């Protein structure tokens, strides 16, 4: 039931097809991989170009998202690049052959198609999944797969073999030639004597015959042919299609497009002894210079960044440095190595996005909005902390007696903090913001690392005689603005 794969027993190695030999397995491939080697492994197993699988996964991801689901399943089903068992095989302690794994993947694609169709059968997205599934079935059928037999035998094959009975492959080069990129599908399609007359489906090995004689075979029988000569059924094919591996003169299993490629034994590249070790690459100073210049630009922009609301100041500093990093990447495209610059640029981009979120009041209110209006001093002296969002501490509702000293602390990690104090009280403000502005009675102190220690004398006299009450206010901010305003009592 070799779905999408070459049905030659020898396709998985010279020993495959022999009694007791390990069946061919579907594994991820380290060679030519982009992400995890799933598509490269599928390409190597099915001998279809990896770009076909990549396009299919991308199409299924963009249209319905089924591609992500399928990719994860494929990753879990396929063995490691070293031939080790897959995640699912480790969990189930059973080993699956490659055909079963591929059939399971096809079943998952079918299930995804059904889900898409049931979700919205009139949409073009569902149609695209159905088209991909149909094409997969057509390719499998064109390669001689009996789809009905595959479906019937799948429950039995899924049981697999015990993992303990599996022998890991020996380390070393692969036993069969890798496709390594583009495969001529048209040439594969021209094979005329592969399935019907040879291989495991042929009734018996054909006897040789002399060239020039009439072939002594009846219709329906395997066409006999002489060793090393093209079979009658393959007379219109290219000469290289006459010998499966370029070394088997009996040609029992048809043709193979790799017989006379760069991997054919006769055409194998000569062994080239390793030369002297290459010279170490010269050190690239591009990243260092770019980061230094970015720091200088950020420092130059710092004075212009002060006193801007909504994190405008930090945004100017970070964006200026990011522009320098971008210029460094331009240069790195031609002249140097710039791996670190991409990471730095990514961090700066995230920081800019974070300031946009944190500086937006509506977002802060939606995520976390806290208001404290203490009515007794014990409530006022408890901790007021905002993790993300906006916090308001209203101290105008606290009854203050003359000469009383009230300790209040408030903190915001990411967001905005506002504190309202009565104008009849004396306020000692101690504020510190790592990244953000501190506004105390309309006077702004900008960050990063802003520090404010200020005493606000009472603007109005209290109704009760005596010295004014004192509020000792400690406010702290990691990323966010803080504001202290006085409100007439």
């Amino acid at each position, binding site marked *: 039931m070799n779905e999408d794969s070459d049905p030659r027993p020898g396709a998985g190695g010279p020993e495959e097809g022999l009694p007791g030999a390990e069946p061919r397995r579907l594994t991820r491939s380290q060679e030519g991989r982009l992400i995890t080697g799933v598509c490269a492994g599928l390409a190597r197993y099915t001998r279809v170009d990896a770009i076909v699988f990549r396009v299919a996964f991308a199409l299924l991801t963009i249209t319905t998202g089924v591609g992500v689901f399928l990719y994860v399943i494929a990753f879990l089903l396929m063995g490691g690049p070293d031939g080790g068992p897959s995640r699912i095989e480790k969990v189930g302690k059973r080993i699956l052959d490659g055909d079963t794994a591929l059939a399971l993947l096809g079943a998952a694609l079918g299930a995804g198609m059904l889900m898409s169709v049931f979700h919205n059968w009139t949409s073009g997205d569902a149609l695209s999944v159905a088209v991909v599934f149909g094409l997969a079935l057509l390719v499998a059928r064109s390669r001689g797969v009996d789809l009905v037999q595959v479906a019937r035998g799948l429950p039995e094959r899924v049981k697999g073999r015990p993992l303990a009975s599996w022998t890991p492959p020996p380390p070393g080069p692969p036993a069969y030639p890798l496709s390594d990129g583009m495969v001529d599908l048209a040439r594969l399609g021209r094979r005329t004597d592969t399935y019907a007359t040879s291989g495991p489906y042929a009734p018996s090995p054909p006897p040789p015959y002399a060239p020039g004689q009439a072939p002594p075979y009846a219709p329906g029988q395997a066409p006999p042919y002489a060793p090393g000569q093209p079979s009658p059924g393959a007379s219109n094919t290219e000469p290289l299609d006459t010998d499966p591996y370029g070394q088997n003169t009996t040609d029992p299993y048809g043709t193979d497009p790799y017989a006379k490629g760069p991997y054919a034994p006769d055409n194998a590249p000569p062994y080239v002894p390793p030369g002297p070790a290459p010279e170490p690459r010269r050190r690239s100073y591009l990243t260092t210079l770019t980061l230094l210049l970015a720091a200088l630009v950020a420092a130059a922009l710092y004075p212009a960044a002060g006193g801007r609301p909504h994190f405008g100041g930090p945004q100017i500093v970070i964006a200026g440095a990011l522009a320098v990093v971008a210029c460094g990447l331009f240069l790195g495209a031609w002249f140097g190595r710039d791996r670190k610059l991409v990471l730095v640029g990514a961090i700066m981009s995230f920081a800019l996005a974070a300031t946009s*979120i944190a500086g937006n009041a509506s977002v802060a209110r939606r995520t976390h909005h806290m208001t404290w209006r203490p009515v007794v001093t014990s409530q006022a002296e408890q901790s007021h902390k905002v993790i993300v969002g906006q916090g308001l501490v209203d101290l105008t509702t606290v009854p203050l007696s003359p000469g009383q000293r009230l300790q209040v602390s408030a903190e915001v990690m990411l967001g905005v903090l506002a504190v309202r104090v009565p104008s009849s009280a004396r306020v000692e403000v101690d504020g510190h913001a790592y990244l953000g502005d501190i506004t105390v009675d309309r006077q702004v102190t900008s960050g990063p690392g802003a520090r404010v220690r200020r005493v606000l004398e009472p603007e109005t006299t209290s109704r009760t005689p005596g010295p004014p009450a004192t509020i000792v206010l400690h406010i702290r901010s990691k990323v966010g603005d803080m504001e202290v305003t006085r409100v007439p009592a």
Partner: protein
Amino acid sequence: MFRHRFDPSSLVAGLLFLGLALRYLTAALGGDPVPFVWATPAALTILAVTLLLRLAFHSRRRERRSPRTPVR
């Protein structure tokens, strides 16, 4: 003059980062905050595109560098 192989992923990443930086610079210097509605998706998209291109071109480079073992 060109000692290093041209890397389009660096060029694209530089362009995207520069666009983001200029957008923030013009907005912040003009006094208008950058709307977070598009800022976060834009940053995430830039990072995803950059990462994909990096993976693609580095994978190709690794493939070219790897010596081919003759199969016998």
